[in-house]
Structures are given as C-alpha cells and as structure tokens.
C-alpha cells in the first residue's frame, strides 16, 4: 500500500543531512529566500556539495516556499546544475563551431579515449566526469577544455594525457 504510505509520511519528511542543511542555509543567507533567488541558491548549493541531492532540493523547496516541481524543473534546466553526483573533477569539452573548426573533434576523440568515458559518465574511481559544454567564450584559443574552473586553450590531442594527469 504504497499510496497510503505516502500519505502517512507527508507530515514528516526525513530530515536533511547536516551538510545539506548547512549548504542551503549558507546559500539562503547569501542570496535570500525570494523566488528570484532560486537559481543563485541552487548554484551555490551545487558548488558546495558538488551536485544537488534530493534532500537539498527538498530543503531549498522548503526554505523558498516553492513547489518541488519548480525547484526540480529548474535544477534540470540549467547545465551548471546537476542532480547526479559528479566525479572529483568535471571535464567540460566545448563542442561549438569555433572550437570545432580549429581541431576540436580530434581533441574530443583524444579526451574520450584518455578518459574512457562517454559524455555524462563518471569514471569508476570517481575521479572524472566528462560532459560537453556550449561555448564558454574562450574561442580565440580553441579548442578549449574546462576542468573544474580552469580553462585550457589551444589544446592539441597529444597534450590531453598530460593535462589530465594534473588532476588527481
């Protein structure tokens, strides 16, 4: 009787783990709890926790007085927000035309080979998550790969291994 269980649980959702509460509290302290703060709050929590676990979404929903569907819909709309856990390092490959025409495809192939990952996947050791991104405005030095917050430009396929080696 799953439905009945749902009804029963309505009154007391499981309390959020302390790190989640702390992350949301800090984000709300910085950005406020008005509706317009939703995206900055989610971004801040995402940065701090690495992603947005269900408990974080629920906590944000509670604090901003906003339906879960809206919080979730927003979390799944913006690419900088993730509802899935990610690896320690986020490897973002720019897949847009300016990078593409200056050799992006070969860098991409090298990157995928070196990581052994398809886009969206996280390595078994939790070290890397590989995703593609739209232009990040560094096209003058394309092809570009962003690892965490660092932008690496003018990449050639043979530099890829060494570049990844810098991220433990």
């Amino acid at each position, binding site marked *: *009787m*799953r*439905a*009945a*269980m*749902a*009804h*029963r*649980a*309505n*009154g*007391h*959702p*499981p309390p959020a783990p302390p790190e989640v509460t702390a992350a949301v509290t800090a984000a709300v302290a910085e950005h406020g709890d008005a*509706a317009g703060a939703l995206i900055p709050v989610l971004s801040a929590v995402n940065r701090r926790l690495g992603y947005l676990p*269900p*408990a974080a*979404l*629920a906590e944000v*929903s*509670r604090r901003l*007085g*906003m*339906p*879960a*569907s*809206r*919080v*979730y*819909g927003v979390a*799944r*709309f913006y690419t900088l927000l993730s509802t899935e856990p990610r690896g320690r390092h986020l490897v973002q490959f720019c897949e847009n035309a300016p990078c593409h025409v200056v050799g992006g495809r070969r860098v991409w192939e090298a990157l995928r080979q070196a990581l052994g990952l398809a886009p969206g996947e996280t390595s078994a050791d939790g070290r890397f998550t590989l995703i593609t991104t739209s232009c990040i405005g560094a096209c003058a030095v394309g092809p570009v790969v962003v690892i965490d917050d660092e932008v690496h430009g003018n990449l050639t396929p043979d530099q890829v291994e060494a570049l990844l080696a810098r991220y433990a």
Partner: protein
Amino acid sequence: MIELTINGQAIRAQAGSSVLAAARANGITIPSLCDHPDLKPYGGCRLCVVEVEGARTPPAACTLPVAPGMVVQTETPALAAARQAVLELLLANYVDGDAPAAGPAETEFMRWVRRYGLAAPAGVAPRYPVDADPNPFIRVDMNKCILCLRCVRACAEVQGRFVWGTAERGFDTRIVAGADTALLGARCESCGACVAYCPTGALDDKLSRGLGAAERKVTTTCTYCGVGCQLDLNVRENRIVGVTSNPAAPVNGMALCVKGRYGYDFVHHPQRLTQPRVRGYLLEGDGRRPAGGSRGPWVETDWDTALNLVVRRLTAIKQAAGPDAIGVLASAKCTNEENYLMNKLARQLIGTHNVDHCARLCHASTVAGLAMCYGSGAMSNTMADIYAHARAIFIIGSNTTEQHPVFGARIRQAVLQRGVKLVVADPRRIDIAEFAAPRFGGLHLRQRPGADVALVNGLMHIILRAGWHDAAYIQARCEGFQDLETTLAHYPPALAAEITGVPVDQLHQAAEIIARNKPMAVFWAMGITQHTTGVFNVLSLGNLQMLLGNMGVPGGGVNPLRGQNNVQGACDMGALPNVFPGYQAVTDEKARAKFAAAWALHDGGPHLAETPGLTVTELIPLAGEGQIKALYILGEDPVLTDPDVNHVRRCLDACDFIVLQEIFPSETAEFADVLLPGTAFAEKDGTFTNTERRVQLARQAVSPPGQARPDWAIIADLGRRLLAHEGRRPAGPQAGWDYACPAQLMDEIAAVTPSYAGVSHERLERGDTLHWPVKGRDHPGTPILHIGQFTRGLGKFFAIDHLPPKELPDDEFPMVLTIGRVIYHWHGGEMTRRAEGLLAVYPETLVEINPEDAVRIGLNGAQTVRVTSRRGEMLAKAIVTDRVSPGLIFGNFHFPGAQNVNNLTIAALDPIAKIPEYKVCAVRIEAVAGDSPEAAPGLAQAAAPAGRSAPGGAN
C-alpha cells in the same frame, strides 16, 4: 472594447483578450492545443498560428492580444500547411500503445490530427514507460504527451497544488511530478484536474480503462460535500464507466475533488442493497423480537411485505405510545424532495415534530446562532462572489482543502492570483495554512481547541482599540453594541493569548490583516460548531462581521461551509424538529395553521404540536431509556457517526423497532429491523441545495440495482399505505401522496415554502442558477443575503464570554483529542470504503500525534497506538507529525470498530443547539507493542520525499 477583423468579419473584443479568445467568443474556431479558456495562455504548441496583416511570421493566436484595427486570417492554405507541419512534428514521437483497443472517445489531439488528414506514424519506439505511476486513479503514459503543459497549468491554476512540472529542456523536455517522484509523493490530491485538461490521454483515468467509451453523459450533482460540484457521469451499458468534468458546471467548472471524480464506484458495489430485508422474527409467530442481543437473521422479502410491516408496526406504536414515541431521521445525502417527504411523513401522517438529521451533529449551532443575530442561518455569500471581491479571508475551524476541496482550491487561487490575504485559525497546521503564510501577507493562528470565543473576542478587542471597526455601519444596521463593547473590554490581548495559546503579536497581526483588508469573508465549519459553546462561537463570528461592516456586501459575509451535499436542503425542507420547510417555526401559530391547511386530511388532521420535537442527540439517548420506541432512519449511520457510539449502540439496541432506508448494509443495519433498499444519487432525479443555497439538479444516470427504489418513491409509497391503513384521505391542496416524479414534488415544495417559491425543475433544466430565497417564478434568486438590512431587521450583537470545553485533560487523561475528517473518506465511510481507489490511498485510520508526544510515549514510526477516554478506546496507526501541537491528537471516524474515534467522543451538548462537543475530549495515549508490518521505514521516504512540509506556494 477593441475592434478588429477576423476572416473579414468585424469583431469587438475586450482589451487584453487574445485573438484566440476573441475568435472563440464569436464562434470562430482556431485550431489549438495548448490553449484552454480556463488556463493562462502558454503559446507552446503553435497550432493556433494565424496570419496578421503586417506581421512577418504568423503569430500564435492564443497569446496574441487583440489590437485596434488588427486584420486576422485564420484559415489560409499557408496556415493549413503550417498546422499540418506542427501536427506532424507532434506525431513524430507519439506512441499510443493502447490504440486501437476500444478506448475512450477520440481525444482533442487526435481530432485535430484527423482534421488535417494525418495519422499517428507506425513503428515509433516508445521513449517512456507506459503506465508509469502507481496512483490508483491516474494513468500516466508520457509517450502520448505533446508537452502542451495544460496539466502543469491545471495543477497550478485550478488546483493550486503545483505537482506537475517540466524537467530537462529541448527535445528531452518531459513532464514530471514533483522532483520526479510518484504523484502521491509529490503532494498530489488526485483531483484529476490534470487528467481533465490533458488533450491527448497521456494522463488518463485509470478506473475507466478497459470499460469502453461512454454511450452517454449525464450531468448531475456530486453526492459528497456541500460544495455542490456538477459533473458528468459517463454511462455505458447502464454502468458508470467514469466521471468527466462539465465545463459549464456553475460552481466548479472543470474542477472536482478526488471523491467527486473518482469516488463513484460504490454505486456498483456488490454489497448494494437490492431487495427489502426484514428480520425473520417479524414474519414469524407473534412477531416478538428474540430476547437478548441480536435481532436475528435477515430475510429478503418483497416491497409489499416490508412496507406493510412497517406501516403496521408504526401505527401500532403510535397508537400504544403516542406519535412522539416515534422519531424520524431524514438524510442530508438525499434530495430536497425526499427530505420534504420525510418531514411531511413525520408531521402530517405520524403526527410528530420528532424529525431531525445529521445537521444536528454539524451546523445546528450555526443555524441557531445566525438566526439569533441575523434572523437566518445560512452562508450569506457565494464562493464566486468571495473569489471576485474579497480582499481578505478568515478561515476558522474549517479544513477547507480537505473537506470542501474545490472551495479550498479556489481559496488558494484567490491568494495566488488575486493576492487575497488569508488568516487561518486552526489548532492544526492544515494544508490551507500554507497559504496563510507571511510570504502571502497572511497568518496561521494555532489556538487551543475550544478557545474560539476568547480568540475572536481578543481580535475584536484589538480592532476596537485601533478604531478599525465600522462605526457608521454599526450605528445604522445593528443593535446591542454597548453590551459587546463592555464584554470586549475584558479580553485584552494578553488574556486572549493566555486562553488561546496564540502569542500576542500574532493576535495583533491577524486583527490588522482581517480588519484592514475589506471586504473580508469568514469561513467556518466544524471547528467552530461542534462545541458545547457552538452557538456562542457562531455568535462571536456574527459579532465580528457586523463590527467590521462586512455583512450584506460582496466579498464579505458569514460563510459556514455546510457539510453534506444536501444538508442545506434537508434543513430547508423542514427536516428539523422546530421548523416546517423554509424555517417556518412550529411555534408560530400562523405557520401551523398554514401547514394544517395545506396538509389537511378529511378527518381534521393533521394535529401539529405547538412545541418543537426532539433532536437526533435526544432521540437516540431517549430510545435507550425506552421513551422513543421506533426510529425511521433514512441514509444515516449513527453507529459510526454519533458521539460516544458505545452508548449509541446500547440505545439502539434498546429501541423496539428501527427501520433503516439505506443503500448498503451499514454498521447501523445491525440494529435495524427492516432494511429498505434506497437508491444512490446516480439512480434518481431530484434537487440538492449546496452550501451557497444554490438549488441544483441531480439526474438519474443508471437504473437502481435489483428492486431498489428511489427514496422519494419509497417514502411516498409508505405514505400512501399509512393513509390507507388508517383510512385517512387527503383534503388540503398539498395533502396527497401520489407523486409522478420529483419535479411534481418540487412544485408542492414551492407552494408551501416561500424561499423556494420560484424553484422548479423546469427552471433548473433551463439553466437558471437559483440561490434561495427565490421568491417567485420570475425572481432571480439571492446570491448575497442581508443586503440593506438583516433578515431580522437590525443585526444583533451578543456579548459572549469564553467558556471552557466540557471535558478538559487531567492526570488520568492528559491529552486533548480533536477529530475530523480526511479528504479521501466520507464520515462512517460506508460509501468511500467501498470505492476501490479511495480505499487504496487511505486504507485505515491514522491518528496524528506530535513528535514530542511520540517520543514521550515511546512511539516508533508508524506504530499502532491505543487511545482511551472515559467512554471507550480505539486502536489505530499513528502518524507522527507537527500538524498537531504537543498535547493534541487528531483522529477520524471513517473506519468502523476499534478504529473509530467516536468510541471516545463525549456526548456533551450545546444547550441551545444540542450539537455534541465532538471537537474536544480528554484522552490517554499509549503505544501498542507488536508493530504492524507496514511500518517498514525506507518505503515512506521513497514515496514522499517532499512531503507536506514543502509548501505549494507561489509559482
């Protein structure tokens, strides 16, 4: 008004209206999918594109505001091609796994597809799981979804629940519930609005699947609550195969609640009574009841036998013990026509005013209180009026979203869309309290149960001090103000806070909100009425609304929400011991003379007593004392719903002869001697009067099962037999008992009931919306009462003091029990426990208990608790929640036996209205060892990650 041209036709439209709406209003259909007149325009599907002179590309008509001089073409070859292209794109990933199985009627989407000569492509791989959600009512198949977002908007803009949302983006966009959970875990109330608005069948009614398309739709009125929603029963082969919204429904439009939309299947339940039953002893020997306990086995019999037996027995008792030894309980579930007959049967043929019904347990205090201060006791304004005009709403003691769900949803929208300020005063953090949050400019006050007079006096004290009262209004329209002022002086905020437990600053804030946002409408229900101080509570609210000058104005008023579908009507029809139909008092000689004439019999009867009869809450105890010897009960279930049911059982047991006219062998049937099979709402014609005093038609959709007969026909038959048995003949114009149909009955009602004088089935069929008083055939009805002056002339202030509830907690019974209902069930649950989906969602009683108390009694999760009062005990599972404060527990009376709170309740009565104090008694609670298997932790979490605490606030 804006003038424009559509397809060469000159058109005038309201400024701000869309081209699509303007066209629609002028009979021009522009193909559309994502648009719906009830919902905010979205502009996503692009089917509604039109050509506008001067525009480079064809804009979407649904989002395009009309502009002066605009020249629009809606049908050109280019537009046809464009629409075809849009439909092709929508079809590209559309998979209907159910086609071509005889499903329901063609969907809106498929109609356009066919119109443009297209068809769903074959061999498309489904992208989503079919039947993806465990909700027992709603079937989800996103392979048919065209992302029109009507469901999202319906849930937000009609229901105010914000369950559906969109996730991902671009081609991957999809509709998800909550944070991508199951519907019920995302706070879905299963109202089905999303289904009703879905144009593709991606959301579908689960209960209707496989039952085939409807052959016809019958518009009728919901059988459950006093909101009075109209709906279409979809019928096929004499069975209800589903319920659909009727967009023209005057009260509710497309909206319904879970019971109205999905709680209909009890009608075809195998336990329906199909044949009269009598106890074997009645057919045997001397007809003496077997000694000791049970009344013996049932024997199915024919109507003649059963009714003749009833006639003989009632006449015998009447002759032996007098007419006042018989009590008649009418039914708020039955039609006006039927209740009129019950009143007539009791008064004219039996000769007693001992006629009452569950209104006694419900709004008796409202009716009495409002009659005292205003002269008439009903909801003064309509929901539509309040939605349109109120600037503040004060809900006190009404769990509106669960008990009057469609009004509850409407109030949410008033807050969300019109910025109405909401104050809720309820000991529990009920759902609507979310909308009384400071972020909406509102407030939730959590007073102690039974402290409403102190609360309202405290608020009035503050209002008076601040000078927010309407002195001119008081001066012109009211009397008795001085007395009130004197009394209010004794309720400074500090004292009010002490009695109610509401902090002083909240009292100030609430007073300011309700006083300074005018007009303000008050809503109340059982939290106010079911107290030994019920009448006082009502008088206090009456005072408040006069003090603020909120009576007789649009958007204001006193708005007691009547509970049963026809409790208003049953009262109107004289199913009360003190009044004839239309509240004509039995103590009034003129009224007695009038009815004596109308109902005159050739033998000089009827004899109409000068004093009122007995109430439900007197009849049953007196049956226990042998004073009442026979009860004729229509559609009521006192064994589950009266207070202190252990006592009720003893009383009924002691009663000589009980006739029960029911649709099920209810719990009360155990105590009956004759069981007459009546018919459910879907099987008969008649009228119900909703809480807004709006008279509406109920129409027969299917035939009754077996030999069951419409209740009016049974009562009329009984009346004819009583006449014949006693050898009496009708003489007065309304004295006869030969009725061809309920319409004819209504004509009789109209003839003797001034407030129904203009009501007729014919007018209702024509679509007239009639709020009583309807003073004549041409009278339009009266949506707002007390305009200009009160029914009694001047409104009267009553100076009321706080009195504590009858039974307060002590060392032995340290907790307060308050009781009420849940959205999925109906009172004793005879109907809703026989509705498959409702039972699946809520299969047993749950007792709400605060986490602090749970810890104190060592309660662990969803464990069973034993709750004990001086009168009995109950056993039910606990739900640990801060919806209740520490020291307070909440239970319901929807399940029989050990799970019923009425084992515990106290039959202490309000001295004026005789309503029992259901809402407060003292109890003790303990955890019961041996846990139930269902209490597996994890499961609950998986099903409800967001839960109640995530408010469905602004969007």
